[in-house]
């Protein structure tokens, strides 16, 4: 659990990312740094996901569904003097052939959770560990969480787009993180 906590710490409190990025001159794998933004993305393994949610009392069928999904943990912080508009709908995950990897929105989980009658506490925990779909990020405000994908084969790239300014139709910023991989993803053995 310590490993996962460290990951979540860096994800949800990206000040540690900023420190790590500034300490190294060379680009850090999984990290974009530029235009006043630090963005980090790395895929979790099935084992990490299963361990995290099992330890929080999620039922086996929920853990199994989560372990079969590719989760990319994203952390971000910006130091711009204006609002940065996060809209996951404007992000793309693309594979090596340029095909878009399907992202599962928060609402996509409602039906499976209804079907297995996932308890409200587990639904709440799951929700708070996900990246918000939309957010007006204020200067210095961190944001982080998991983004769920249908597991793609091979490595893929995150192409993130943000609008900046007082309104969500301001100038566009783009950030790109290549080399993300969910390979080897599958359902681990889950003990009830």
């Amino acid at each position, binding site marked *: 659990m310590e490993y996962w*906590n460290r990951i*979540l710490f860096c*994800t949800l409190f990206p000040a540690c990312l900023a420190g790590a990025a500034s300490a190294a001159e060379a680009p850090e794998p999984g990290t974009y740094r530029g235009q006043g933004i630090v963005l980090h993305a790395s895929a979790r393994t099935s084992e990490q996901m299963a361990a995290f949610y099992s330890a929080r009392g999620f039922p086996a069928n929920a853990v199994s569904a989560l372990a079969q999904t590719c989760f990319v943990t994203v952390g971000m912080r910006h130091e711009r003097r204006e609002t940065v508009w996060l809209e996951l709908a404007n992000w793309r995950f693309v594979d090596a052939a340029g095909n878009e990897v399907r992202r599962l929105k928060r609402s996509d989980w409602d039906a499976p959770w209804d079907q297995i009658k996932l308890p409200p506490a587990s639904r*709440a*925990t799951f929700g708070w560990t996900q990246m*918000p779909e939309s957010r007006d990020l*204020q200067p*210095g405000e961190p*944001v982080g*969480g998991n983004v769920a994908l249908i597991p793609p084969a091979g490595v893929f790239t995150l192409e993130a787009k943000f609008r900046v300014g007082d309104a969500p139709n301001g100038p566009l910023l783009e950030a790109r993180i290549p080399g993300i991989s969910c390979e080897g993803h599958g359902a681990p053995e889950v003990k009830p």
Partner: protein
Amino acid sequence: MMRTALLLLALCLAAAAHAAEPPPGLLTLDGRPAPALKLADMDGHTTDLEQLRGSWVLVHFWATWCGPCKKEMPTLQRMSAQIPATGLRVLLVNTAETDDEVFAFLPSVAPDMNTLMDRDGKATERWQPRGLPSSFLVDPQGRLRYLALGGREWDAAGYLAFLRGLAGRR
């Protein structure tokens, strides 16, 4: 003599105005009424935000799995020890976890703090924090006045001065 007095007065007014300015990381809200919050702690003692009218209240949502919460919690404890509870009450609200999870975590990071338990996460949902951790400052009339953006260092000088200022103007 008169000029010195006027200068001192101006300095005092400037200091007061500065103290009223929220430090970086606190977002000023529009003063809408705070959502209801009535929860029990792990001992079964219930706290109702409604009953705390007359004091500023810092409502802090957290979870044990959240890394920034672990870093922020000790600063909340140190801040609480320095500001009289009559002026500022601190309410921790654990989001959707069990007694065991909280009991394994809280004594190691903030042993003097107690937390309310939002066992099904529905109270947290009503408050719509921007993420975890998240802290709201509720004024003595029960209105949402400030929101902390992510984890904050509550015992830093700028925050202590600001919170003391709030606690002093109930």
